[in-house]
């Protein structure tokens, strides 16, 4: 009865509804995009009415918001942070730099395509995306969660070797703890 498929479906719907309306964001301020978050959170745009709230540590966070360009040096830290987060977890790539490098397309130490290194659920394009765009990105993420399609963590675990190979390609000196240490 408990492990019945239909009852599991109902449980999934309820859980996804809760996940959808309670999004705790770890805003990893890698680049210039971090400046767009205070207006998103404060009284003009008020993301908290959608259940979007800041989280202080990766252990409590649901969404890793990568705001802007990622140098190879920050990518190392982002990977560490991402692996410390608890399942289910989502990644939101924020700004052009995470999509195709943006204005740092020919930089010698900035990665260009984020989803080769971490499973990205939603991209928000723009340079910079305005708070409206950020909110619409969160709305898109909520849609995906409700449909049960935001399973980046599962994808990451299943294809961990592929992601690791990509990560190790640009981080040659790999001294990192194990997954979810």
């Amino acid at each position, binding site marked *: 009865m408990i492990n019945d498929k239909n009852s599991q479906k109902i449980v999934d719907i*309820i*859980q996804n509804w*809760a*996940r959808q*309306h*309670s999004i*705790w964001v770890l805003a990893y301020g890698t680049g210039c995009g971090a400046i767009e978050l205070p207006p998103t959170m*404060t*009284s003009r745009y*008020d993301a*908290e*009415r959608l*259940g979007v*709230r*800041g989280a*202080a*540590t*990766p*252990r*409590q*966070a*649901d969404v890793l918001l990568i705001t802007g360009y990622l140098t190879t040096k920050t990518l190392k830290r982002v990977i560490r942070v991402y692996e*410390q*987060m*608890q*399942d*289910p977890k989502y990644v939101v790539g924020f700004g052009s730099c995470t999509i195709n490098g943006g204005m740092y397309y020919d930089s010698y130490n900035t990665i260009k395509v984020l989803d080769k290194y971490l499973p990205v659920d939603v991209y928000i394009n723009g340079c910079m995306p305005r708070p409206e765009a950020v909110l619409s990105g969160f709305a898109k993420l909520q849609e995906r969660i409700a449909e049960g399609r935001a399973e980046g963590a599962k994808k990451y675990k299943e294809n961990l070797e592929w992601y690791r190979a990509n990560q190790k390609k640009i981080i040659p000196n790999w001294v990192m703890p194990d997954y*979810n*240490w």
Partner: protein
Amino acid sequence: MESVLYNILGAVATFLLAFVVGMIYGGLNRKITARVQNRKGPPFYQNFIDAMKLASKRSAIHHGIMQHFGPAFIMVSSVMSLMVVPVLTHNQWFPNLNFHGDLIFLLYIMVFGPLGMALGAGQTGNPNSAIGVTRGLSLMTGFEIPWVMALVALMIQYHTTSIVDLMNVQIQSGTWLMFSSPFAFIAAVMAMLGMFRYSPFDIVGAPAELASGPISENGGKYLFVMMSAGSVFAFVKLTLYVDLFMGGADNLVILLVKTFVLYLIPVLYSLTTVRYRTEHAIRWFWGWPSFFGLLAILQAVFFK
């Protein structure tokens, strides 16, 4: 046998009530904060959604057995203090396990939770946790002084250490203790500001500064247990204050009104102030609140 079953059912009912009311109060706090900041704010049931989400996290890492016990200690402390505090004056549905001397028992058991959390946070190895724990214990040394002074004043004045006896005193005399021993009430309310750990005494959590302090390594289900325990504990504190100083409550509606009015004090005070540093917070508690506590004891000794 029947009475045992009745007690167990009543305890479960009390716990559920405390959980629901505590969570809704937490949500209302967020809503009030949002309205004061000219925002729409989350719905009042947002805390339930958060709790549900935290409970449905698929993984929760832990660093050892003591961290496992940390949230459990907080929960045990909250539930034990809930069982001692009478919810209503003429309670049929909410039995409590109070006895002579339960006020002293409460003084001890309310410290037990934070101490358990300190043990749990110590094992996570996170430096923020360690700082948060030291701050939390320092803050406790701050607000325990006026709080204990207020309670001792009540004990001296009415020659009892039982909460039910104190409630009976208020019913017989017809006046609330907040009027007959006002200094004790003032000291206790000032201590309550520290107990709730809202701003300006949010030095333990301090999200932007300490990454939420002792709980920084706890995610998912651990955080869920801590959140529920915190909500229950908030209800316990408010009910205890209502019992001690505001004459208790005959039914649930009066209880909710009285507790909510009391709850508005730390909430609204938190909106007007910013975070103190640890030494400032302790100095604050050892200043006027302790002075009022001393006045309360003097009043209890000389003007019975």
